[in-house]
């Protein structure tokens, strides 16, 4: 399929660029870790309280880290008007959307893979066996974040105060994802399994599917002037 081929081509290009400079990845990683430290100093809590707050703190850290990545998302295209070069080529705009979303997703997943265990270590949490389930929830939530985030990042590309505007328009729309991931994670930590939180999981999956579809269909209009 031409769409997937083009997505793959663009994704490889972005990954190659990132491998060379590692600008986004390193800043995101350090920022995520920094937030963990800030949380530690801000919330001086007993260990069991930390376990309750862990999902929320983790997600806050990922949200802000992810927003950093989103701000950088189209950076390569802004130099030398490369975005125009892409728009004029036989590129399906949906492929650009999928490629950028996947790129941000990969970056965020790499950061999360490190920050989550780090969080466990720094805050002396147990229940290491639950990490895979927690990671599944994080994956679904991160997909939702990257999907909507890419659309918003492209929308605000030529706005003033872009770094402030992007979170402003993105976060209210992210509320279903935020609620769903944190409730799911809480349920896993409390009961050791998903249980009644399965409905939240379904909401997450639904959110992801809906907005990936919307994104692919609508990206034409997002980039047009």
């Amino acid at each position: 399929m031409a769409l997937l081929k083009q997505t793959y081509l663009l994704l490889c290009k972005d990954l190659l660029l990132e491998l060379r400079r590692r600008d986004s990845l390193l800043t995101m990683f350090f920022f995520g870790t920094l937030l963990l430290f800030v949380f530690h100093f801000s919330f001086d809590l007993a260990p069991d309280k930390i376990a309750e707050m862990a999902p929320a703190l983790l997600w806050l850290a990922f949200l802000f880290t992810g927003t950093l990545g989103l701000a950088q998302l189209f950076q390569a295209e802004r130099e030398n008007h490369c975005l125009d070069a892409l728009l004029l080529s036989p590129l399906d705009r949906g492929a650009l959307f999928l490629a950028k979303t996947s790129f941000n997703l990969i970056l965020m997943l790499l950061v999360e893979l490190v920050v989550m265990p780090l969080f466990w270590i720094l805050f002396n949490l147990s229940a290491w066996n639950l990490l895979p389930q927690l990671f599944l929830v994080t994956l679904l939530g991160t997909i939702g974040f990257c999907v909507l985030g890419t659309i918003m990042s492209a929308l605000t590309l030529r706005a003033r105060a872009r770094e402030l505007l992007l979170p402003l328009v993105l976060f209210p729309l992210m509320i279903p994802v935020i609620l769903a991931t944190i409730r799911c994670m809480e349920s896993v930590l409390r009961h050791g399994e998903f249980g009644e939180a399965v409905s939240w999981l379904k909401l997450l999956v639904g959110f992801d599917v809906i907005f990936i579809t919307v994104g692919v269909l609508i990206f034409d209009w997002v980039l047009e002037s």
Partner: protein
Amino acid sequence: MTINKLAKAYGFLWALRDLNLDLPSGAFVALLGPNGAGKTTLLKLLAGMIAPTTGSILVDGATMAASNPAARRQIGFLAPSDHLYENLTVWENLRFFTSLYERNDRATSIESALAAVGLAQRRDEFVANLSSGLKCRVSIAKWQLLQPGLLLLDEPYGVLDGNGVDLLEGFLRSHCQQGHIVIMASHHVSRALNLCNRAMILHQGKLTFDEAKQQPWPTFAQAFGEFLPHGESWLS
């Protein structure tokens, strides 16, 4: 290439109105007109970067539309030192664009294109490290590989030095001779007229003049004289 009743409105303002055009292959068009006439809008419409409000563009019989990205394979836009990724090498840039356009992406083709512009030794240098003149050469190599049926240029003379100008004009001439169409918008009227075999004048969004080149060209002088406050002699 055929254009039917093309028009573009921004809000309540019409940037381009009622444009009808029929270009044969091998046409080299000099697109002239005062600032704000709609030249850039027309070029962007042709390039598929913006969508028309009404009307259609057909290239080799295929309609250019957002739903038909494949039609854009025939369209090229030469920006002399733009449209190249700074942090990729010359080779990687050419590889990327040829794969994207699904044309000539074999290593041998790219090599010979680079050799033709004298950049074979610099294939692994980052574009960021090249001067704008060299970037121009990379662009020429790029479009040489992509072979668009319709090549567009918007004020290319701004960033070029003497060498670059010669290279560019040589490329454009040979591209035209292969039967492709070139449309160049420029304020350098003398150079543009030298190269072209057809001239079009846009004024306030309307096409007011469209003729094949003649020697001498009194009709052109008259049409163009309406924009030039002081009569100049630019036709040799």
